[in-house]
């Protein structure tokens, strides 16, 4: 039950909503579609479902070209961004709808419909709400009913458009774990939209990152986080410090500061190069073995971790320190490390960089670079 999207392009007037999208999803996979608002996630989902027709390109379901097939031949279950439950029908009738509208020959008998609906409502743990109407449900309950309704017709593919978009953080967390377990149980090939990166990383086996109607990167959560292919992916997935500078004489130079690179890069020369450094790839040191000196401006406890904001301090020669895009450097520490260092606002500390990644030109992928410890 694979999904293949080949070079799909969709325009609204002269605005390109989908730009040459190619994408493969294997049988039984759970893939997240991630991207900023307006990047074309819903449009892509609607195109796969058949609610939108692309200007060029094709959509293959299980190897068969479905580009011009009507919706009902695609066997796609769709969960809408705003649930789209039938408000004038009870929860039971909502879930039963897909079974009741089947052609007479395929329609199960009433007793079978009842059994199936109750089974599904059990699956989403809401059987006790069968007689209620959608307006009488909470957001999370509506969401699960929408899912049960989509599953009732036993779709081969499940497309979920921001399934947890309108819910508060706790309910989202609960439903996330629940969706994951459900997927393990049913193994329907699924594609779900979100603009919450944490959600995507937690639930999906692979992530598609989109921006401006294009796919920026497609890969496992770990791969996308560790080796982002474009600056956009790097900044969109997780936090990152962007340092402006250049590479010459075996070191990365930013402002007056210098970061020695591994020996293998001795011959590399890049006139203009941003370095991307994750907040947790920066270690705080007290003492001289540091790459850079900073002053801590803000401490933000985040539960098990601490976020610090620091600004560069002038070095011995009076240089301005490294140039970051925001003017600040974000550092992330474990609680233990933070306590052990006894840090506070105003302290001057040294930084050691463990990991850098960068991008040549627009979008050449580049392995992250481990920075060697000073001799």
């Amino acid at each position, binding site marked *: 039950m694979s999904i293949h999207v080949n070079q799909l392009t969709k325009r609204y007037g002269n605005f390109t909503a989908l730009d040459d999208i190619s994408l493969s999803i294997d049988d039984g996979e759970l893939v997240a579609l991630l991207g900023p608002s307006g990047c074309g996630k819903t449009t892509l989902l609607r195109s796969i479902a058949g*609610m939108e027709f692309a200007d060029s390109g094709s959509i293959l379901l299980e190897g068969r070209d479905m580009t011009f097939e009507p919706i009902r031949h695609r066997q796609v279950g*769709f969960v809408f961004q705003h649930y789209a439950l039938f408000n004038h029908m009870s929860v039971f009738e909502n879930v039963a709808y897909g079974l009741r*509208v089947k052609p007479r020959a395929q329609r199960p008998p009433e007793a079978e419909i009842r059994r199936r609906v109750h089974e599904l409502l059990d699956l989403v743990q809401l059987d006790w709400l069968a007689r209620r109407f959608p307006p009488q449900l909470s957001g999370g309950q509506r969401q699960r009913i929408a899912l049960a309704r989509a599953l009732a017709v036993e779709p081969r593919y499940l497309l979920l458009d921001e399934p947890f978009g309108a819910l508060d953080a706790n309910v989202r967390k609960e439903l996330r774990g629940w969706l994951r377990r459900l997927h393990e149980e049913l193994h329907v090939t699924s594609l779900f939209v979100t603009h919450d990166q944490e959600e995507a990383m937690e639930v999906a086996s692979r992530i598609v990152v989109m921006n401006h109607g294009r796919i920026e990167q497609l890969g496992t959560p770990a791969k996308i986080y560790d080796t982002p292919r474009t600056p956009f992916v790097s900044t969109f997935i997780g936090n990152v410090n962007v340092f402006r500078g250049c590479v010459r004489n075996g070191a990365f130079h930013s402002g007056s500061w210098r970061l020695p690179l591994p020996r293998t890069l001795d011959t590399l020369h890049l006139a203009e190069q941003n370095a991307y450094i994750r907040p947790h790839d920066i270690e705080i040191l007290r003492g001289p073995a540091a790459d850079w000196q900073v002053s801590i401006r803000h401490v933000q406890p985040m539960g098990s971790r601490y976020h610090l904001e620091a600004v560069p301090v002038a070095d011995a020669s009076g240089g301005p320190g490294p140039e970051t895009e925001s003017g600040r450097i974000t550092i992330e520490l474990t609680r233990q490390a933070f306590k052990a260092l006894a840090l506070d606002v105003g302290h001057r500390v040294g930084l050691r960089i463990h990991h850098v990644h960068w991008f040549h030109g627009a979008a050449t992928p580049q392995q992250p670079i481990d920075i060697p410890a000073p001799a």
Partner: protein
Amino acid sequence: MNSTPHRHIVARPQADETPLVRYLLSSLAMAIIGLFLILPLVAVLVEAFRDGWQTYMTAITDRYTRHAIGLTLFAALVCVPLNTLFGVAAAWCIARFEFPGRSLLTTLIDLPFSVSPVIAGLVFILIFGAQGWFDGWFAANGFPILFALPGIVLATMFVTLPFVARELIPLMQQQGAEQEEAAIMLGASPWRMLWTITLPRIKWGLLYGVILCNARAMGEFGAVSVVSGHIRGSTNTLPLHVEILYNEYQFSAAFAVATLLAGLAIVTLIAKSIVEWRQQRQWESASS
């Protein structure tokens, strides 16, 4: 808004009028309603029964009155279902699809509202009249349109055309297409979707439009007056019949027949408020 003692009663923002001003304003409103709405109704009833119950009954069971009632009912019976059909179809097209000429269609639907009914009637005279475009072709071939039933139906159709569509277009635009798409995604045919999703969701708005359409169809005077020819017992609808009786100085009879139309108005008003109330409840539950 300051927190006055009756804040819990009035949830709307409230200006700081003194009780006197408020009292004067509401009295004025009541006086106007009394003068322009209640008084005429009372006058109709008083005049209708001036010569007693017997005369009243005679007037409304009169052969010509019965025929006028029949004709009015017939015209409404033809026009209301046709305009309902048209209204649903037009509202669906306009609310659900983008197509060239969409805004033109929206404007055209309003045309009967902006044209004086008399002009509408005259247009039909121009088209089907003896000197008109069709040069009396229909009449010559045994199917007269003017001064006959088809003309009355056509004129009524024209003036009542916008009622249902006008009611449904904003409603369907506000509801959006998502639930309909969901039905299609679940395998429903478009026809099935129409009956199980679209119509149940718009039913109160639709009923509201139908009630208004019906009231206008039965009460229309201007356009019908122009095309009917006032042939008693043949092309006289209820409103026209009232006029004829009045012009013949049969005041009691005229007012007696008028009570029928007044009754229709009151029934319409009650039905309308029930539907409005139901619709309000549906909107509230849908947006909660």
